[in-house]
Every structure is written in structure tokens, then in C-alpha cells.
């Protein structure tokens, strides 16, 4: 009887032990599985980055190759690296003037957009007036229309005023998209500044312009940075309006790039070099405003 009891007890212990070890094993498996996951955590991001960077890599790669090499068999690095393509761009006025034109109208557009948007955004953030919300929304909807819709009216309008092929024409046309965006971004930042700061400044004796420049603008500096950045980006990459409204004197680089088919066929290398040079200003601007943008996403609306 006692023996039987002992055996059952032992059996029970044994089964208990197996249960425990089974649990351990399950835990171990789970841990190993998690370990497997963490061992390959880099896989998906790496694939994604390769996918993103591949065209840029290919572009940079091409820009250092000769045309023969480009149309020949695939090479992953230039066999005979050359800077000739870049030399062409920096020496030929029909190339480098494209960059100058683009930068001129982009900067003009940035300045106009932000200068116009600042008072507008202030009004939207500080005053209530009839239909303010509708007006604000309507401004935003301007961004939803495709540029092609506006190409024709702009062309006709600017022809009538003799503005075709000037920098200001493109800058003004881009304002159609950039002013609403800038107003929207700045309004978010301004609404984050308590109205009491305005009033305290008035009580201290500040006039409105002085208050706006000395007290208010420093408070929304990152907002102005973010707004200017977005204006830059949209104006820099916009092709259709810029191409339609210019012929030679203010022709943007993107238009020059898409038209470069010479008698001897496509000049692949030069085109690639132009592409690389087109990316650089955008990358530079992003680099400079990256902190502001991070702050901007946190503070304002954007």
C-alpha cells in the first residue's frame, strides 16, 4: 500500500517534472523564435533602403560614366570614371543658367509666399470673422487641383501682361499652391502662441509691426523655417507650370533636362550629372532645416 503510494507519488513527481521541462522547452522555443526575429531585424529596412536608394545610386553611377559605357554592358561602378559630364554642365551656359533660373524663381517664390502668408495666418489664428473657417478650408483646397488645370489660364494671363519667360511669372504661379500651404503651416504655429503674449506686448507699449517682428516672429521661427522649406520643395520640383511659362530666359533646369535630345541622340552622362546636381539643393535644404522640421512636426500642425 505504502509502496503503491510511493510509486504514484513518484509518478506524480515525474509527470510534474516533465510538465516543467515541457514548459521550459516552450519558453526556450519562444525565446529562440524571438532571437531569430532580432537576428534578422535589419532585413526589411535594408531592403527598403536599397529599394529607395537604387535609382539614386544608378543616377550617380551614370553621371561618372562615359556614354559608351552607359549604353554598353551593365557595370556597377564606372570603369573609366570621368568628370567630363559635370564639366559640360558647369561650362555650358544653356545648362548652368537652368540652375540659376530655378534658384531665382524658387527663392522669389519662397519670399513672396512666406511674406504673404504671415499676416494671413496671423489673421486666421487671432481673429474670428464671418466665414473664416470656410475661407481657411477653401485655401487648402487650392492645393488639391492639378497644376495642369492652371497652366492654360496662367499662360494666357501672363501673355497678356508680357510676363511670359520671366522669373516672377513662375514665382507668382507657384504662389497659387504655396501660399495656402504656408498659411496652413504658419497658422498652426501661431495658434500655439498664447494670445496673452500679444496683449502683454501691447501693454508694454509695442506697436503692432514692432511686436510682430521683435516678439512674435522669433516665437514662430521654426514655423517660418518649415513653411519656407515646403515652399522651396514644391517650387523646386514643379515642372509643368515652370515649363509652360518660360521659353529661354527663365527656363528652369527640370525643363532643360527633359528636352535634352541632341542630334547625336541622348547625352546620358550629362543628363545624369544634371540630375545629381538637381537633387543636391533639395538635400542641402533638408539638411539645414531638419531640426526645425522635427520641431515643426511636434509643435505646429504640418
Amino acid at each position: 500500500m505504502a509502496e503503491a503510494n510511493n510509486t504514484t507519488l513518484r509518478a506524480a513527481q515525474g509527470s510534474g517534472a516533465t510538465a516543467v521541462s515541457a514548459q521550459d522547452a516552450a519558453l526556450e522555443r519562444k525565446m529562440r523564435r524571438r532571437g531569430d526575429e532580432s537576428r534578422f531585424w535589419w532585413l526589411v529596412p535594408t531592403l527598403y533602403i536599397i529599394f529607395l536608394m537604387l535609382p539614386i545610386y544608378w543616377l550617380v553611377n551614370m553621371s561618372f560614366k562615359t556614354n559608351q559605357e552607359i549604353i554598353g554592358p551593365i557595370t556597377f561602378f564606372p570603369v573609366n570614371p570621368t568628370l567630363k559630364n559635370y564639366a559640360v554642365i558647369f561650362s555650358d551656359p544653356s545648362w548652368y543658367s537652368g540652375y540659376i533660373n530655378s534658384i531665382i524663381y524658387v527663392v522669389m517664390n519662397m519670399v513672396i509666399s512666406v511674406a504673404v502668408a504671415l499676416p494671413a495666418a496671423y489673421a486666421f489664428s487671432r481673429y474670428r470673422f464671418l466665414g473664416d473657417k470656410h475661407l481657411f478650408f477653401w485655401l487648402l483646397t487650392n492645393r488639391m487641383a492639378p497644376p495642369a488645370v492652371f497652366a492654360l489660364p496662367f499662360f494666357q494671363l501672363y501673355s497678356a501682361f508680357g510676363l511670359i519667360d520671366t522669373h516672377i511669372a513662375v514665382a507668382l504661379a507657384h504662389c497659387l499652391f504655396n501660399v495656402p500651404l504656408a498659411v496652413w503651416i504658419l497658422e498652426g504655429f501661431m495658434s500655439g502662441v498664447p494670445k496673452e503674449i500679444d496683449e502683454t506686448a501691447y501693454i508694454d507699449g509695442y506697436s503692432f509691426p514692432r511686436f510682430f517682428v521683435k516678439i512674435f516672429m522669433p516665437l514662430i521661427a521654426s514655423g517660418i523655417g518649415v513653411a519656407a522649406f515646403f515652399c522651396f520643395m514644391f517650387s523646386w520640383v514643379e515642372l509643368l507650370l515652370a515649363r509652360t511659362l518660360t521659353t529661354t530666359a527663365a527656363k528652369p533646369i527640370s525643363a532643360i533636362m527633359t528636352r535634352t535630345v541632341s542630334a547625336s541622340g541622348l547625352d546620358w552622362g550629362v543628363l545624369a550629372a544634371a540630375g545629381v546636381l538637381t537633387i543636391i539643393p533639395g538635400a542641402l535644404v533638408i539638411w539645414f532645416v531638419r531640426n526645425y522640421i522635427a520641431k515643426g512636426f511636434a509643435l505646429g500642425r504640418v
Partner: protein
Amino acid sequence: MLELRNVTKAVGGVDHIRDVSLQLEHGSLNVLLGPTLSGKTSLMRLMAGLDRPTSGSVWFDGKDVTGVRVQDRNVAMVYQQFINYPAMTVYENIASPLRVAGEDKAKIDREVHRAAELLKLTPYLNRTPLNLSGGQQQRTALARAIVKNARLVLLDEPLANLDYKLREELRAELPKIFSETGAIFVYATTEPHEALLLGGNTATLSEGRITQFGPTISVFRKPLNLTTARTFADPPLNMIALDKEGTDFVLEGGVRLPVPQELAGIPDANYTIAFQPHHLSLHKPHKQAVSVKAKVLVTEITGSESFVHLSFADARWVMLAHGVLSFEPDEMVDVYIDPRHIMVFDGHGNAVGAKPRKAA
């Protein structure tokens, strides 16, 4: 002298300030006392010139300043929220009104250091306000108000967001600092005891109206109407409606409370009597005191004092008693009402027997 004449302010069809007339003397300390939304801030904004009254006028030293921009008035204001210029250092924050006024560098430097010394901000002059504690931020705002040397200083619940110790300290300091300048000093608060500590004059506000204005102590002791009495009481005032019959007020249950001598002549009618929580006691304070039986609702103990919430007839009372008391809920207790300390109001809520005094 700042004078408001029949000032009304409506925003979106809602009256925030209703027909307020007020005269504040130079060198006086004036407390605006009222619960939240009673119109303290609205009234201050009208005094400062940040808002224009819908009707009525604002006069300063005999001149109508109703339409004058706030920049052209000599006012300083401090908000409940800590409002400073975040992009400037504390030094520049304090210097800002002087810079705008075009004072020379040496004077600005002297004034800023004097104000910083006064408010113990000297070590922080080179920091920006957001790197300071709440108390330091508010002191920066106060320092800016001091250097301006304004004729009208408006403080809108300036200490409400500060911790207890700092509040006590600054509350004692502020009136002294500003009284030297001879300015009209206006201080808004929701707390009756703060008004009592500050002294000076008090205007009690309720729903956009000034219900009474006069020396703080007399407003507290002899409110002209029930609204003022209720505004100026924390914990809430104890009230009960009753009838006067001959020489006594008759309470529910037939308890007779003798009518105070000075009110002996009032006609028999329905009245409301009110008294402060510390005038309700467990022990007979005076031979005329009357005992009533009340039911205990709940007892709150705060250190050495107890708030006993009672129900008597339809009324809910609070008794403030010394010591830690433990009553069971629903226990019946005998409490004493001292007829010497009751305030009597007629059916319209006006104090009975008090002569309406000319507002000082």
C-alpha cells in the same frame, strides 16, 4: 483716478460686464473678488484698454480714455498664466517696456537690476523664461510690471498657479512694492481670504455686476446683499429662510432665535438669515445663543480643524470647529447659532437695516 461709468461689455450677445460703475483712487489697493466667470478678467481688460466697452466710458484722471489704445495708456498687467516673451532672456523680458519707451541703457540696466533684486531674480537674468520654475516665471512677469512704473497696475489672479509658500511670500510683498509707486493697484482673486489678507478695498463681482464696493473689512462684515455675502465666504455661507414673529425669528421645529436689537424695528415677514461657518458651534458661545438639532452629513478633518457638514430642515450648513471631531453620519447633534453674528436679508436679498453706503 480711474473711473468706470456705466460700463457694459457684451460678447456675442452675452453680457460679460453689466452696467459697472467704479472709482479707484491713486495709491489704493483694490481687490476684485468673485468666482470664476464672474467677470473679473473682463473688467480688467476694460480697465487696461485691451477691450472696448459696448457702452459706457472709462475715465482716467478726468480724461475720457474709452477709445485710447492700450499702447498709449500707462498700464501694466500680469496674467494668471505665466506670460513672458519666451525668445528673450529674463533680463530682456524685464527691460522690454523700458526699451520700447526708448530709455537710455544705463537707466534700463539700473531699473532691471532693482526690480530683479526686489523679486529675487538676479541669478536668473541670463536665462530664458522657459528654463525657470513657475514662480520665477511669474516673478519675471511681475518685474516687468514694476519697471514700467505704470499708473494702473492690474494683477489677474497672479498667484493662483503658484505653490503655497511662494504665494504667501509674494502676497505680502506685492502691495508694498506697488504702493510705493502711488499707482492704482487692482488685484483679482477668487479667494475671500486672499482679499482679507490684502486689505484695501474690495469690489465683489457676481455675474458681471459689482455687488458691493468698499473697504474690505466692511464688505466682509456688513455685506449689503446676499450675493456679496455669498461671494465673500469660503467655506460657503450658512443660510436659512425663516419668518419673523414679534421679537423672534422662528426656525423649523419652533426654535426661536431672538432678533438682534438693532433690527428690532423690522416688520414681520419672511427673511433669510446667514452666518459664517465659524459662528456655528457645539458649545454655547453666549447666553443668547440658540441651540438647534442638526443631522451630520459628513465630517472633514483638516489638521486641527474640522468641517462638519450638517443638514437642518432644507438647509445645508457647514460648521467650522476646532479640534478633531468624529461624528457618525446621520448622528443628531446640538449646534448653537449666535444671534449676534447673523446677517439678515429680506426677500430681495438685500441686507436689512444696513444703510446703503456711498461707494468709497
